[in-house]
């Protein structure tokens, strides 16, 4: 019984870590910019393929592949700001939220198809992964799962430190809480938006490597984590970062338990059930407050 329980918890924590990583990038952008980045899934996929290209196709060390994924995601986020978001912000701010959502749907589809054309549709193996397990009595702890949880916790701690302790982090939080007041304090909000999208893209790149190391690389790789990330965001309250991380781990554990108890096909419906319940009883999310329009 202990080994089954441990397996469920390990599976829940691993998927929770992956969901958390996908959710934080999405939530950060929503919280500070009021922007639902529908291209987040494609940025995640891009990170996975960037690591694959550097490590497998070019034969470079895994650490270079990993750094390449971070860089690819960050560059994609930066380009998204420079070519799309900045221009939409210069137009009518009242329609920014809907316009940017539609625009990023298009960018996401285009990027996914570009990856399909470049790498083909066949699943590929992500070379950056750890093999083997740590065995303690009846408990089997795969190194890959441990690596994912450790990397994600380290990244979450870094993001939390960045937001709480640094000048850039304070500017991001100030812009999220009151954009006009932040501008009056001397914050260049356009630069903040650029930094947020670069950071979110870098996190998506890491997430792409992690997800593909557990499954396989394919062009729609990012769609499932992004769908789950949306669920976590809604359950936690859009833009609430600590809440999103808590929701990611909590719901992933719930999903793992439901999959064991009722069968794998009931995992996703159980998450949807939670979302519907939250939307009915706490529309602002479990940790959220009533949303205000930011733009």
């Amino acid at each position, binding site marked *: 019984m202990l080994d089954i329980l441990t397996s469920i918890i390990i599976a829940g924590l691993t998927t929770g870590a992956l969901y958390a990583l996908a959710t934080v990038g999405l939530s950060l952008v929503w919280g500070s910019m009021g922007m639902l980045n529908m291209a987040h899934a494609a940025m995640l996929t891009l990170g996975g393929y960037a690591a694959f290209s550097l490590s497998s196709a070019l034969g470079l060390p895994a650490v270079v592949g990993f750094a390449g994924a971070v860089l690819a995601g960050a560059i994609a986020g930066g380009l998204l700001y420079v070519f799309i978001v900045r221009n939409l912000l210069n137009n009518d701010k009242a329609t920014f939220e809907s316009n940017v959502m539609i625009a990023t749907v298009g960018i996401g589809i285009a990027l996914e198809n570009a990856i399909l054309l470049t790498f083909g549709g066949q699943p590929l193996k992500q070379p950056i992964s750890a093999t083997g397990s740590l065995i303690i009595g009846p408990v089997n702890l795969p190194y890959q799962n441990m690596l994912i949880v450790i990397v994600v916790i380290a990244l979450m701690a870094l993001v939390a430190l960045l937001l709480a302790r640094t*000048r850039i982090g304070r*500017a991001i939080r*100030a812009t999220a*809480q*009151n954009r006009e007041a932040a*501008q*009056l304090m*001397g*914050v260049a909000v356009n630069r903040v938006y650029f930094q947020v999208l670069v950071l979110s893209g870098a996190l998506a790149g890491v997430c792409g490597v992690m997800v593909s190391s557990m499954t396989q690389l394919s062009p729609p790789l990012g769609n499932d984590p992004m769908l789950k990330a949306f669920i976590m965001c809604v359950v936690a309250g859009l833009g609430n970062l600590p809440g999103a991380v808590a929701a990611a781990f909590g719901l992933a554990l719930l999903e793992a338990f439901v999959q064991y108890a009722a069968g794998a096909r009931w995992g996703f419906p159980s998450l949807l059930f939670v979302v519907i319940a939250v939307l009915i009883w706490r529309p602002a999310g479990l940790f959220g407050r009533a949303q205000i329009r930011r733009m």
Partner: protein
Amino acid sequence: MTLSEKPPVLSLSNIVSGYRELTVLKGISFDVAAGAFVTVVGPNGHGKSTLLKTISGLVPLKQGSIGINGSPAPGQPHAIAALGVAHVPQGDMLFPEMSVLENLLMGAYLAPSRAEIDRRLDEVYTLLPKLADRRHQIASSLSGGERRMAGIGRGLMMGGEILLIDEPSLGLAPLVIEQVYGVIAELSRSGRTILLVEENPARVADLADHLHLLDDGEIVWSGPPAELLARDELLATYLGG
């Protein structure tokens, strides 16, 4: 050198501004000398807040020009803040989920060094000791008067030469209004240049050097506060008596 002989630190020349198609300010011109206390009074909804927002760059200029220390004002609010214009907006606009200390530190976002931030923090805590007591409290949990003080403190943390203060008495109890104006008087005595907007001219009668009466986006009268208060017909026409 009298105030009128000092060079203006802020010059407004025929400024026209508003929101999209709506024009609120219809050609405002006046100067504010270094160290002066200038007040703009007028009824609600006639452009007082828009005037300050236009100076600080939150509302774009449609026509005219703004000069700060003799140079044309840049268009972006963060660049105007960097020139030493500190805007204390109406309703405080604090960062609600940050502590009082974090709000004050945001005021010093452009400060050149940690030592300068500490110096400004000491100055603010000396002038507004309650903020020191409340420094770890979340801004959204402050009372109305404390929020107003925090807003002024944050403006002071910017270290700006020119303070734009928007209706500091709005929504406050009479005793708290007195305290807030006491702090503003202290700031004026310390030599800061203040441009303040207010609905009630009597509140600034003893403080302001010069007063402009704003009606429907235009300056309809300018002069010393005592003179306006003696003009019953102006008070009755523009400020409801």
